Each structure stands twice: as structure tokens, then as C-alpha cells.
């Protein structure tokens, strides 16, 4: 049985704004086991970054956690003081932020920024910390590292900055690494290197990774499990094979269906826009854009229906009384692959 290191239960987060309360996280639960990679995918604005920032105790000032718990081992992160969080952050739980420029200090040499967590948390002396920083800088693929370690953030390209941010996050060998779009700014070659690096590190020190990305190709290659978010809720979760080859929620169908294939002439975008979280819909949040929506979707939030021991989806389509619908062709194709995989496994 895998060791559970993080357990998030019924998390609810609001943002107070002039226009009213933005209900950004609406009852989110998930867990993370030692050494695994959980990918969180989903609509822009669905709450992926806010969820993970709350794990770090880094919510904006206008945020309020209105319910739930975040158990890291046997301690509730939500009950920690800022002082206590400072000892966890960067050491036990580290985060690679979506916006590299705001997570780097423009006035500080990058070597100093990489070395600092080591000096602060691991009490390594300055010289040794800088030499470790240099090794890491080479590891993340910055050429002329000896020279460039003395440079400031603005002297690097978008992708180079992101690699520096990654170096800072990895330097203390954290137990949990939260990576929020860590490779979005990177080209595929460097992306492949960084992903390989994260996997290696994961094997070496059994780091657990929470990986947020829009790139479903990256998810396919990195994740053990996947959670799909929409409008502040998780609508489906399962193993990577279950989500990619046997998806159940129409939003997950829409996601998998919107990617270009070699023969696409027009991309299948999901029409419409996500709901306004100032006044979220009371039923399935996807109802307005869901071509398979039923009356009950507008009225009542669907519970999680069990698909397998590891796979759950919150859609009324899984209710025993729901009509049978035909998913998009691309999903039917994927389900066929799933059957093949399962048949293969059974042998």
C-alpha cells in the first residue's frame, strides 16, 4: 500500500472582490501518494493554480479558505502559521510557478537565488551552496553556467528563466514538488530534458509531483494519475490510461477532442465560455456547454460515480437511469484502445 503524504478534503476557497465573492475552489478533494505524479488538467481559470498555491500557504490577500483541510502527513497545512509555513515552503514542499518572472528577484544574481534555500533550510555554507547551484544550473541545461550564474534574471530568455526557477525548486530535494506549467515556456527539446530530470529526481529521492499543464502530451508521458478540473471543481479523476482512453465526463471528452491531429482541418473547440464564479451554477458546472446535458444537470450537482477502484467521474451520464449517449468519434477510438490495453493486461 502506497504511503499517502497529502490528503486534501472538501477544500473551499473564495476571493473577496469589489464585484462580490469569487467562488474559485468549490469542494475539491484529492490525495497524493509518495513517489507518484498527479497531473491536474482543466479549463483556464478552473482553479488549478489556486488549489496548489493553497498547499503552499501562498494565497493572495483577498483569498479566504471557507472550508476543508489539507493534511500533509499528519499536520493540517491550513492550521499552520506563516512562520511555520516558511519552514515547509521551499524545503518539504516546493513550487515551480506559472510566471517565472514574478518568482525571480530581478535585483539578485541567479546564483544567489538558487543557493539561498540551501543556506536557509539546509545550513550549507555559502561556498558549497554556490557550487551546488552551479551543478544544478548545468543540470537544467544552461550553457556557460560558470559565467551565467552571476547574471540577473532579465539577461535570460523566457525559457532560460524558467529553468532557473526549476533549479531553485529542486535545490532542497523537496518531498512534494508542485509544478505549475513548468515547461509551458520551453521548447520541446528542453522540455523533454526537464521532464526527464524531474523523473530522475523523483526516482532518486521519491519526490511526489503535482503537475499542472495544458499539454496533454506531457500529461500522457508524466502522470500516474490525472485529475480534471472545471469551474472550481474536480469533475473526473483516474489513472492516466483511464482518463486518456476511457474518459467519462463530457468536459474530458471535449478536452481530448480539441487537440490537433495530423489530419485536422478545423479544431473542435468547446463552444462557449466557463461560468462566472461570482455566481456559479448549482448543478453540473459544464451544463451550458455540454451537448449531452440533461435536465438534471442544470438542477443538481452530480456526485462522483465509480468507474473503477481508481476512476471516478461526476457526471449524471453515469447514473443507471441516464440514456446511453454516443461520445465524439475521437473518444470512441480511444475507448477501443482501452479495450485492447485491458485485454492485454488480462493475459
Amino acid at each position: 500500500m502506497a504511503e499517502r503524504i497529502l490528503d486534501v478534503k472538501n477544500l473551499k476557497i473564495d476571493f473577496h472582490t469589489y464585484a462580490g465573492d469569487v467562488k474559485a475552489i468549490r469542494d475539491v478533494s484529492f490525495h497524493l501518494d509518495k513517489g507518484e505524479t498527479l497531473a491536474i488538467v482543466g479549463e483556464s481559470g478552473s482553479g488549478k493554480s489556486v488549489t496548489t498555491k493553497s498547499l503552499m500557504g501562498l494565497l493572495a490577500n483577498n483569498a479566504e479558505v471557507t472550508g476543508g483541510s489539507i493534511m500533509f502527513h499528519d499536520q493540517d497545512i491550513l492550521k499552520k502559521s506563516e512562520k511555520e509555513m516558511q519552514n515547509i515552503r521551499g524545503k518539504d514542499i516546493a513550487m515551480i510557478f506559472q510566471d517565472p518572472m514574478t518568482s525571480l528577484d530581478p535585483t539578485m544574481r541567479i546564483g544567489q537565488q538558487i543557493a539561498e534555500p540551501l543556506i536557509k533550510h539546509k545550513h550549507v555554507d555559502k561556498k558549497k551552496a554556490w557550487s551546488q547551484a552551479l551543478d544544478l544550473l548545468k543540470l537544467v541545461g544552461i550553457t556557460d553556467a560558470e559565467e551565467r550564474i552571476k547574471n540577473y534574471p532579465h539577461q535570460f530568455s523566457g525559457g532560460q528563466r524558467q529553468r532557473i526557477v526549476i533549479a531553485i525548486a529542486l535545490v532542497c530535494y523537496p518531498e512534494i514538488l508542485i509544478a505549475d506549467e513548468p515547461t509551458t515556456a520551453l521548447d520541446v527539446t528542453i522540455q523533454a530534458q526537464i521532464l526527464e530530470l524531474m523523473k530522475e529526481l523523483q526516482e532518486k529521492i521519491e519526490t511526489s509531483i503535482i503537475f499542472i499543464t495544458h499539454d496533454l502530451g506531457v500529461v500522457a508521458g508524466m502522470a500516474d494519475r490525472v485529475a480534471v478540473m472545471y469551474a472550481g471543481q474536480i469533475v473526473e479523476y483516474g489513472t492516466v490510461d483511464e482518463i486518456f482512453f476511457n474518459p467519462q465526463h463530457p468536459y474530458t471528452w471535449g478536452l481530448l477532442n480539441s487537440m490537433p491531429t495530423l489530419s485536422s482541418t478545423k479544431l473542435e473547440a468547446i463552444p462557449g465560455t466557463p461560468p462566472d464564479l461570482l455566481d456559479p451554477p448549482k448543478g453540473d458546472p459544464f451544463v451550458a456547454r455540454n451537448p449531452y446535458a440533461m435536465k438534471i444537470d442544470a438542477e443538481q450537482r452530480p456526485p462522483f460515480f465509480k468507474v473503477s477502484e481508481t476512476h471516478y467521474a461526476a457526471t449524471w451520464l453515469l447514473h443507471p437511469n441516464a440514456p446511453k449517449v454516443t461520445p465524439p468519434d475521437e473518444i470512441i477510438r480511444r475507448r477501443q484502445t482501452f479495450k485492447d490495453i485491458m485485454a492485454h493486461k488480462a493475459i
Partner: protein
Amino acid sequence: MSEKQRKILEVKHLKQYFNVGKADEVKAVDDVTFDVYEGETFGLVGESGSGKTTTGRSIIHLYEPTAGNILFEGKDISKLKTKTDFLSFRREMQMIFQDPYASLNPRMKIKDIVAEGIDIHHLAKNDAERSKVVEDLLETVGLNRDHSSRYPHEFSGGQRQRIGIARALAVQPKFIIADEPISALDVSIQAQVVNLLKDLQREHGLTYLFIAHDLSMVKYISDRIGVMHYGKLLEVGTADEVYAHPLHDYTASLISAVPVPDPEYERTRKQIPYDAAGEQDHPGNPRKLREIVPGHFVRCTEEEVALYKKKAAAYN
């Protein structure tokens, strides 16, 4: 590309160096030449630090080129003299910036950010018209019209990116440099934005320089693709050709690194490594873009042309 198509942009031997003459001199763009035809999408791909953004920023004249020329509609942009010339250039060419965080002023409301160009170029008759245009643009890019009174920090990464797109569209430009415009967006919105960019192109004859590292999307949206590496263009051709029949080893390596949304495939994907050692320039043996098959160019020496021709022939 048919001969009849009109060149809207000509980049000629562009060099853009930083810290010139100092120990840390960077040749961010090093002798790059390419044309963009009116109404097409030219995709620029290449690894991080290869000079894509710098090329874009030079084209929109945020930098004075170290050497070379950039012609927009036949006019050298370094020689725009009068303020009117410059303003009209700025209206015709817009850039969607790579970093949606740094490029939005945190103290401005969304409507004022989007309307910046409308104000500069006096494109709205009155406040009501200005609001209407802004709200329509927000909807076009998949945001809510009541978002217009909020500030950038209240938005997620992908939402901010779309604000940047709305701002660029506001002045109805002819030419848009889109620097990683969709990489911060989730796939369904990527599809929306890409479809939107394509629709706008069809309706208004827009031309795009589309900078991205997501090769599958670049292939989908672009008519032609240029592959950059260390400040140089290594390969140029139609999107289909470059993707299906890559000639340069670097291009092949880049394509092999593209993750595919299929866990089964990913478990066994093999990446082709690339070694740049063979790219050295020897005196009297200059490397430049040479046409291997019609419309498909590779940076190579005179001697290598025959090799590449053989390679191209082997594909068919």
C-alpha cells in the same frame, strides 16, 4: 508559395546582438533572412534562447538592428521618419507578448488595457463606442464582458493571455506577431483562439508571424515554418513539408521531442538526439539557406546540397 503573392515583410540579414563588444556578447539573432507573404501564417519554432522573441521584437522595432534590414510593405522600418509614419506602422503591426504577466500594467483596468491602442489611434468616437468595442473583443477571445472593470491580478494565466490578444486585435492590425500566444491556454481554449486567429485571417486577410514551441499546433496553423537554432534559421519550408519530410537533423530531433497525448505511445517514444558539431562554419565554406526542393530550404554548405537532395528524394 505562388510567385504572385506579395511580400508584406522582408527580413534581410538581420543581426541583433546584445552587449556588443563586451565579454558577455550575445548573438541573439545572427544573419537571419526570410520573407512573409501577405495573408499567410509563418511559424517560427526553435529551442529556448534561439532568438525567436528577439526576431519578433526587432521586426516590431523595439530594437535597432545591429545589422541588416527589415522591410514592412516595402519600407525599411529603421527609416520611418515622421511620427505619422511611425504611428501608422504601429497600428498595422501588433505583437502579442510571450509573458502575459509582465506585459499587462497591473494598475490598469482590463478595459483600459484593451483600449490602449483605440485611444492612441483615436479609433472610437465616444465612450459608449469604446466600451462596446472592448466588450465585443473580450467576448471574441472567450472572456466575459463584465470582466472589463477588473484588474490583471484577478485573472488566471490563460485569461491574461487572452487579454493580450484582445489588446492586439483592438486596432485592427494587418500583421500580428504572436509570441507563444497559446501556450498558456488550455487545449480547448487553444483551439478557440487558433480558430479565431484563422477566422480573422480569412475575413481580414491578416498576416501572422506565429512564434511557438508547440510544433503540432504550429504545423496546424502555419502555412510555412522556419526553424531557428542559436540565432540562425536552419530550415524553411511549407508546414507539411517540414513536418513530414524534415531535412535538417535539428528539425527531426525537434519533431521527435513532441509529446503525444497518448500514454501508450509515450511509454515507448524515442527521441532523436541532435549534435550541433556538424554545423561548424569553415572559412570559404559558408553556410546559408539553400533551396533543396522548390520552396524548401536548409542552411548548409554548397557541398552538402547534393546530400540533402538525396535525402529529400528518399522521402518520396
